């Protein structure tokens, strides 16, 4: 498979800073093995924003937890694949070695800033904790650094708010604290797991702007995990579409939004309410639900819900097909050259026979 090109502003010769190759992660439950990630590959270059989109349960959160090494002990095992960060395979590292990366070289911000902040610790202390874990600094030095960061994230009255507890701050401020915790050590990668889902729409916009600003200032690459295509449109350079543990389509934001090829992607895009469209069309929702990952079907996992499903779709998994030279690919039989040939043949014969 040809490696994808990256977003604007970087040289094509550079290697990606993060490469996930053929990752497969499973969970062993009393009912059997749940294959959460079934051979997914994606790449991240310096300073860009990519989005991994898909429904709940498609494996996106598990993927990044595996990258970060924060899967709870004993839960989930990596069946195959490698995760290369600057060439080093993170899967071969010990827990202790990974701790040097967590919060430092790569950080994560979570969905709900209320439940993800320690209620009995001041927000300032929670930020300082991350800083002093990875940098030698006295309390005073750490505090001044925290104030710096708080100004960076546009937090009003930093000195006062530093000593407050999470429940005393608003939702937007709490999310900014989460971001502060994540960026204080200047990470190369920032994972954002549904960062706006639990926020009001107005606050969402603030957070998105903040993240874009920070990316510009600090040159941090962002991996955005979400099912909200609106947020993706505002932030991502490239998009990976994930379904049932596999990547089914990839392309730049333009390619995906303007010319998506996979039926699932089209479904995702079609289900976003748009202010500029006429309201006489029904909001499209993909019927059904994702397949059970204990017994994934042998063919395409989306076939049961796909209006274009063909016989081959339930028999064999579709191979990813390159669409053009830019790295846009889609794993769907509709895009396969064999199908396209068949279809044009059929059209040809129909035309001839009038």
């Amino acid at each position, binding site marked *: 498979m040809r490696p994808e090109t990256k977003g604007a502003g970087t040289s094509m010769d550079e290697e990606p800073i993060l490469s996930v190759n053929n990752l497969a992660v499973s969970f062993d439950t009393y009912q059997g093995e749940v294959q959460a990630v079934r051979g997914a590959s994606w790449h991240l270059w310096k300073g860009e924003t990519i989005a991994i989109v898909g429904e709940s349960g498609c494996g996106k959160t598990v993927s990044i937890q595996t990258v970060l090494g924060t899967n709870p002990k004993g839960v989930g095992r990596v069946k195959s694949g490698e995760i290369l960060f600057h060439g080093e395979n993170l899967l071969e590292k010990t827990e202790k070695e990974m701790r040097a990366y967590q919060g430092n070289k790569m950080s994560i911000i979570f969905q709900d800033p209320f439940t993800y902040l320690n209620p009995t610790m001041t927000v300032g202390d929670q930020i300082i904790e991350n800083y002093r874990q990875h940098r030698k600094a006295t309390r005073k030095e750490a505090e001044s650094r925290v104030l710096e960061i708080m100004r960076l994230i546009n937090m009003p009255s930093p000195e006062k708010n530093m000593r407050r507890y999470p429940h005393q701050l608003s939702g937007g401020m709490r999310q900014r604290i989460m971001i502060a915790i994540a960026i204080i050590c200047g990470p190369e990668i920032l994972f954002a797991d549904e960062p706006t889902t639990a926020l009001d729409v107005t606050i969402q916009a603030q957070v998105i702007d903040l993240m874009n600003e920070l990316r510009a200032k600090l040159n941090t690459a962002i991996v955005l995990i979400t099912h909200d295509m609106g947020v993706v449109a505002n932030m991502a350079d490239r998009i990976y579409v994930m379904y049932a543990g596999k990547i089914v389509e990839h392309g730049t934001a333009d390619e995906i939004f303007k010319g998506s090829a996979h039926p699932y992607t089209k479904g995702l895009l079609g289900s976003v309410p748009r202010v500029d469209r006429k309201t006489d069309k029904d909001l499209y929702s993909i019927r*059904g639900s994702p397949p059970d990952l204990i017994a994934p079907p042998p063919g395409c996992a989306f076939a*049961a819900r796909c209006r274009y499903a063909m016989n081959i779709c339930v028999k064999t998994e579709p191979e990813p097909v390159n669409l053009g030279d830019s790295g846009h690919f889609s794993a769907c039989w509709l895009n396969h050259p064999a199908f396209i040939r068949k279809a044009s043949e059929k059209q040809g014969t129909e035309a001839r026979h009038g």
Partner: protein
Amino acid sequence: MTQHDKRFMEDDFLPLPRDGMEPDMVVRKSTSFTKDVWRSFRKSKTAVASLAILSILVFFVLFGPLMTKYDYFSNDYGDVNSPPSAEHWFGTDALGRDLWTRVWVGGRVSLLIALLATLIPYLIGMTIGGISGYFGGKLDGIIMRGIDILIGIPPLIYMILIMVILGSGNIMTLVLAMSITGWMGSARLVRGLVLQLKSREFVVASLTLGASPFRLILRHLIPNTLGIMVVGMTLTMPSIIFYEAFLSYIGLGIKPPNPSWGQLIKIASEIFRYYPYQFIFPCLCVSIAMLCFNMIGDGLRDALDPKLRA
């Protein structure tokens, strides 16, 4: 077809017949709620073992006295304080009474008290808590204030006082004393649950569709709270058993010659040095009962907790 398409069959690219695929195919077997709970419960080996042991204990409590020809009150001055033997499986006490029979009859008393003194306060509490939560408003406020104040009064102290007044000695006074002092906890619990459920969608939906409050309480509120109630009751039983033993120890429990486990322990503890067996048997019963109820209660609580379910 061209060279490249050799791998594909003729009809591969034909549309899939629609009757073949269900968008919502469910692969996993579905389990009912009770089966789920039972399965989770079974995971805790201690809980299952406790259930088994408790059943054995209850069996003996019910049928033990029938196994011998002795009763619990006949004195036999010729065979006083004798250790366990083939004649008297648990030995005899200071008045020559068969200890085996006395222990199991005492068990009937103690367990009956435990049952009644758990159920009745819970029923009282459920009623008051349910009313308070359901109707809300001023009534709720007053009842809750009242409970806040009453709950501050240590129950045992009042139990003692009530027992002194009512004149201890029989099951009903004990149960009454415990009921008067023990309903507040369950009242709070039920009120909290009712408040939670009141705002749930299915309740609002039912009411909108015209369901009567009574029917609502019966069909919806109660089944949803049942699990938590059962756990609460199972975990209250050991306290009651303890209280009974305690009250007997300070002289307020069941009066002789009626046996109860607490009564037997008290009498025996004074002569423990010389006749340890008289002390050990009722102690074992009390300990086992308290332990088993605790373990079962824990197991049930873990089984009902959605977060802990595998």
